[in-house]
């Protein structure tokens, strides 16, 4: 399924007349030929399965009861949407995505501003900053769950005891705040991502204009508010969009840190369970279709804004 975006970028004009002439047609196919392998591959591998999912979502199909396979109408959708678990999963997915993307975007912006100065050891600080993003997500989740959050030997409680002595509070972080535990672990991984894109955005500012504004007596805040921020807007949008694409689908952290327990099961995890553990194929597919519809709604808006970043360099 493709998202209809109608990007505002101008379509290049083709020289020459309409499709009537043979030459023109051969030319078109010569142009298309290099594109076709990738395009066909993507359609077969990503679109066909989704069509099957769409069909399955209207079917009664549980692998445990193979005889009862048949047409179910909108039953699966009704069951999915009235199910408290799914509704909680939808809510968790929204909270998780918005929480992680917003917090890492704000932190990423502040750190990018900090790193957008010359200072001793800047390269080292930048390298330290991107390290979390380079830890394999499952490993990062294990690290947070066992080495940091664990109530009896995790670093957080260890530091509490080290600082406040034997009577220091020793909270069970994950049980107390399961969703925030996941959000923090993910913010730690995604802030570097946001920071890298925003830092690159900051460094692409037209310096002469900013210098001129400084000479003209504009304050630091004015320069940030009226020059830097508008310039950064498209970079903010791009990093938010890309971050959302990945965080919405997060499976690793939920699977590893809480196994979807304590009310932290998001949609990917719920669908994984419905299909992998409960083998209710019809219902898993209906949930999948709902996720896709939700994603299309968000993506249609998001893609529009991203196309603006690429619009400038599309003229050829």
């Amino acid at each position: 399924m493709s998202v209809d975006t109608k990007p505002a970028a101008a379509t290049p004009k083709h020289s020459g007349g309409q499709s009537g002439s043979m030459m023109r047609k051969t030319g078109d196919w010569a142009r298309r030929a290099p594109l076709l392998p990738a395009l066909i591959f993507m359609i077969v591998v990503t679109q066909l399965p989704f069509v099957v999912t769409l069909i399955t979502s209207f079917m009664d199909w549980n692998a445990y009861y193979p005889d009862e396979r048949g047409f179910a109408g909108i039953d699966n959708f009704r069951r999915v949407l009235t199910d408290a678990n799914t509704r909680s999963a939808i809510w968790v997915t929204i909270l998780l995505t918005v929480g992680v993307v917003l917090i890492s975007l704000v932190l990423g912006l502040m750190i990018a501003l900090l790193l957008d100065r010359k200072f001793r050891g800047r390269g080292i600080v930048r390298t330290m900053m991107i390290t979390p993003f380079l830890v394999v997500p499952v490993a990062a989740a294990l690290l947070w769950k066992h080495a940091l959050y664990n109530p009896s030997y995790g670093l957080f409680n260890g530091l509490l005891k080290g600082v406040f002595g034997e009577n220091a509070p020793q909270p069970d972080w994950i049980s107390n705040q399961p969703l925030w535990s996941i959000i923090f672990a993910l913010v730690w991984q995604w802030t570097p991502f946001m920071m890298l894109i925003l830092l690159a955005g900051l460094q692409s500012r037209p310096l002469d204009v900013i210098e001129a504004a400084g000479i003209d007596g504009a304050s630091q805040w004015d320069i940030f508010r009226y020059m830097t921020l508008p310039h950064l807007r498209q970079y903010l949008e791009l990093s938010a969009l890309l971050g959302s694409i990945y965080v919405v689908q997060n499976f690793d952290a939920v699977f590893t840190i809480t196994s979807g327990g304590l009310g932290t099961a998001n949609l990917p995890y719920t669908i994984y369970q419905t299909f992998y553990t409960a083998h209710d194929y019809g219902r898993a597919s209906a949930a999948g279709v709902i996720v896709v519809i939700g994603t299309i709604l968000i993506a249609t808006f998001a893609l529009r804004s991203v196309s603006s970043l690429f619009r400038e360099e599309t003229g050829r």
Partner: protein
Amino acid sequence: MSGQVTIVTGKKNRGGGFALTGLAWVVGLLFVMPVLWMLLTSFHTEEDAAKNPPDFGAPLSLGGYKEFFATGPWPSLANSLTASVLSTALVILLAFPAAYALSIRPVRKWTDVLFFFLSTKMLPVVAGLLPIYLFAQSVGFLDNIWLLIILYTSMNLPIAVWMLRSFLSEVPTEILEAASVDGASLTRTLRSVVAPVVTPGIASAALICFIFSWNELLFARVLTGTVAQTAPVFLTGFVTSQGLFLAKVCAASIVVSLPVLIAGFAAQDKLVQGLSLGAVK
């Protein structure tokens, strides 16, 4: 990263500058600290690793690594390497000509095609998982590394197409015209004129594709078993034993993350280009 930007009026207050520098260092250390802690713990004995409060100066030991390698991680590491390298190669092979047809000699409605590619990235992986599983099951393709290679290729192809297109659109047209005047064929033009100019773009795309394939868990978890299991799946099945295992888990996490850490550190700038789909160079 070019363009060393200094805040223009920054010279006025030296003290503020030092404070900001200090803050930057503190933030950097905070972010890297969990990884350093993981590294240190991986070299402790299980008894020392489980101490509370932590014993930072405990004697170093290779026990965690020995125990990890004793659990037989090599096949899964080899599978991860195979899946990541082959899918990355396949991605570049497919994406490069496609990017050419979307930039240098664009097809009609090329923007629609470009956004079609990106929109497939927004299609949640879970929505296609079931049919892929059923299909693989019916043709006996489950637990086969080639299934992962194909899926990782589809996962990363849109990223590579976007990135390479963005690089290719910077190839100066004069070079291409000169090549076509000389009567060079399409393949020759691609290989000897375009490729050298966009090699940095190919490197960025390959780096990102490699990292994303290496990290992938959901497909690998559902579609592989004992034979084609990848390193992230191996990691998830790792913490089953009761008793002390923290040093072992940290050692395992370090080993599995090492290829990505090395690749990412070695090519930090490529990382930025890749993450921004080539929008930032």
